[in-house]
């Protein structure tokens, strides 16, 4: 893995992705409608939505744009690092 490639490509892309994500969240551009699955199941078919299930590791932070943007940014970095660790382990050396 070339360190230059990380500096030239990875970091700028990740910064841009986090910036776009934050703008979408803070500007309220993300839809608050139920997603296609939820709409079809819970709204259209009238199946009761399950309660008391695991709400995620960040549930204790509550809700809001700041929390969403922050946890989203953390998630992007976590996925990036995990992906690099997993695929580095699987890649051939050299």
């Amino acid at each position, binding site marked *: 893995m070339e360190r230059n490639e990380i500096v030239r490509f990875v970091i700028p892309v990740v910064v841009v992705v986090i910036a776009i994500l934050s703008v979408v969240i803070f500007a309220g551009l993300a839809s608050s409608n139920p997603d296609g699955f939820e709409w079809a199941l819970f709204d259209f078919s009238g199946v009761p939505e399950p309660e008391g299930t695991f709400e995620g590791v960040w549930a204790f932070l509550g809700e809001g744009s700041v929390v969403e943007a922050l946890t989203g940014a953390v998630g*992007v970095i976590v996925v990036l690092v995990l992906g690099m660790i997993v695929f580095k382990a699987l890649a051939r050396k050299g």
Partner: protein
Amino acid sequence: MHVPDGVIPLALQILMYGISLTALYVAVRRVNKRLSEKTVPYIGVLAAVVFAAQFVNFPVPPSSGHLVGSTMVAVMLGPWAGILVIALVLFVQAMYGDGGILTYGLNLFNMGVFSCLVGWALSLLFFKGLKKRMGEKTAVLVSTSMASYIVTVAAAFVLGLELQTVPGFGLAGLLAITSIHALIGVGEAILTFVILLYFVKARPQVISFLSDSEVRELANAVDAPWAEPST
């Protein structure tokens, strides 16, 4: 398309875990030592982009949708590496409460195993038909976008079939989830085109369909991830 816990019968969840874990095992075997170490940063970035794109929903009245990205990653990295990327993204999302822990196997099957394998196969079929008419770069964009649309609708249909095990869902529900994803698929195709366009312009060498082509000759720093190790 992320199914939470508490909806699907346990027997189906166990079955889907079995299928998905088997597919993951095969994926690891198929990918192992075939990727160049130099491509690892790109794969990490791709996974991060997919996570971010799945994080926010775009409006599709009366519903909403988000990018799945399975066809896109399958075209870029090959179907097996694509499954691994989606598995990773879905795992972190499950930790975020988006999609259940017990339904992880089912979600991975729908958005990873099924979508990557079918998306890759359809894209390849379209790509082979289109590349002589419009050039490889345009063909990979068009074929992947078309396949991503079909796969989004097909995956929703498969999910609708799985939801037949849920009392109250029924055939009307199957029709509803499939038809709403016929609209959501348009967004999937557009986002796939835009994100893939960036990689086609910036790093064409990481797109598997463009291997053994004139684009590969332009690759200056990075080996193609699908290349066999030199002996």
